[in-house]
């Protein structure tokens, strides 16, 4: 069956965002130095990940940085076989949610295992990485 005619627009739209990170910049700077830290509210003690400068529990704006360490356990995971357009050609890749001591959970890529071997509760370690253009990020690897 042939498709009905459509007008193929000649005006493609490219969106590229400059995402502000100044209020939690220390997270990214620490990551470059290999440390994985997040925010703790100085008022109520609430620890948040992703880090945020304002506390969602008490709405206070005073906070300190705490080191989450490197060890986490595997909570759940998947393996992406069909990747989004901007990740085309990079798959398949695994993604996991890991839980740190104290209960903070983090989502990141998972390396060093495969879907049939991964088990909930297995020990993970978080590692800092950086892209070719210098943007830092982090991955879980099997400990």
């Amino acid at each position, binding site marked *: 069956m042939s498709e009905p005619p459509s007008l193929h627009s000649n005006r493609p739209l490219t969106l590229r965002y400059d995402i502000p990170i100044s209020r939690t910049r220390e997270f990214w700077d620490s990551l470059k130095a290999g440390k994985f830290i997040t925010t703790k509210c100085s008022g109520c003690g609430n620890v948040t990940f*992703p880090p945020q400068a304002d506390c969602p529990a008490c709405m206070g704006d005073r906070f300190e940085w705490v080191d989450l360490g490197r060890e986490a356990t595997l909570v*759940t995971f998947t393996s992406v076989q069909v*990747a989004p357009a901007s990740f085309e050609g990079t798959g398949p890749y695994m993604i996991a949610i890991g839980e740190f001591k104290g209960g903070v959970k983090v989502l990141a890529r998972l390396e060093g295992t495969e879907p049939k071997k991964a088990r909930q509760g297995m020990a993970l370690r978080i590692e800092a990485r950086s892209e070719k253009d210098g943007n830092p990020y982090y991955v879980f690897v099997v400990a």
Partner: protein
Amino acid sequence: MTRVAIIGVGHSRFGRRTDVNVGELAFESIREAVEDAGVDKNDIKNVVVGTMGSWYEESLPAVVVNEYAGLSGAGTMRVEAACASGSAALKAAYNSIMSGETEVALAVGVEKMTEVDSATSVELIGRAGSYMWEFENFGMTFPAYYALYAVSHMNRYGTTEEDLARVSVKAHRYGAMNPLAQFQKEITIEKALGSPVIAWPLKLYDACPLTDGSAAVVLASEEVAKRLTDTPIWIKGVGYSSDTANLSRRSDYVGLEAAVQAANRAYSMAKVSPGDIDVATAHDCFTIAELMAYEDLGFCRKGEGAKLVREGQTEIGGRIPVNVDGGLKAKGHPVGATGVSMAVEITKQLRGEAGKRQVPLKNGLGLMHNVGGTGHYAYVTILSRS
């Protein structure tokens, strides 16, 4: 206090609709709904358009849709609650009547998802969470979000890949009986299990397709509804809730807390229990989502969703028929249209107009469960014949 009724419904054919633009597509269901209601379109003072957009060319879809249908001049807005945008539109239209602001309102849901290539659609839905912490460096996809729940549910409760396939087989069986559905062909468990993995353990046949489609409902105050129709379908309860953008901030991954809260609020407002419901639509964007919906809605105990589908309790003739229109899986999932499409289906069922898919009615009560994102938004709406 007034009550609000659905007095007219309209529904386009769902599928790859490269034959129509967004205005034309929305009009298919708007015209049908207005005719079904028997209202003068000039009496519609509020049009709420549920759509997520960005995969089609219009930035202001509500005014484009209204211009095409000759509804310019009515109060209007576009609302977004991801895949629950349709229910959000219904809620906003309902509110405008409950407040006494208007007597007749129109809720329209529309989406055109196939004007961009499918990798771009995957990209746009993959960003439906917390962009910086889930997408930018990691490349999450919509199936991947639900796969995180599937892995947890399977580990905790022994739900199997076969159970997920059973949900898909059921969806396709009813899709084959729905002339407006995107997929009108039955499938087997073997075919579902043999389909390629898209986000482990979810396979192609665990996932809803990319769909173009629209649906519309005309809502009226009690006074107008009683004047215009003998079969008003009343909106008896609406519950809505939300959850964190980041999945990592959720406490568990075996159910959608926002859906549980929305359901409890809807049951309490309607003063009914899960066991009173005759027919339901559940937001089965993925097969695992339908099993979790059974549990979140209280149709079974936590962890027993798979048992319900194994026993055929959610088929016509079972304890609580769910998605007998084919569901998102087979009927299709034009994001913003889905919630309104659910309202059309439940209205037809409660009017006794669902033909060979008609469920037996005991209490005249139907429920629609509409989730946006991965439980980011949740709307549960209860409709009633009386």
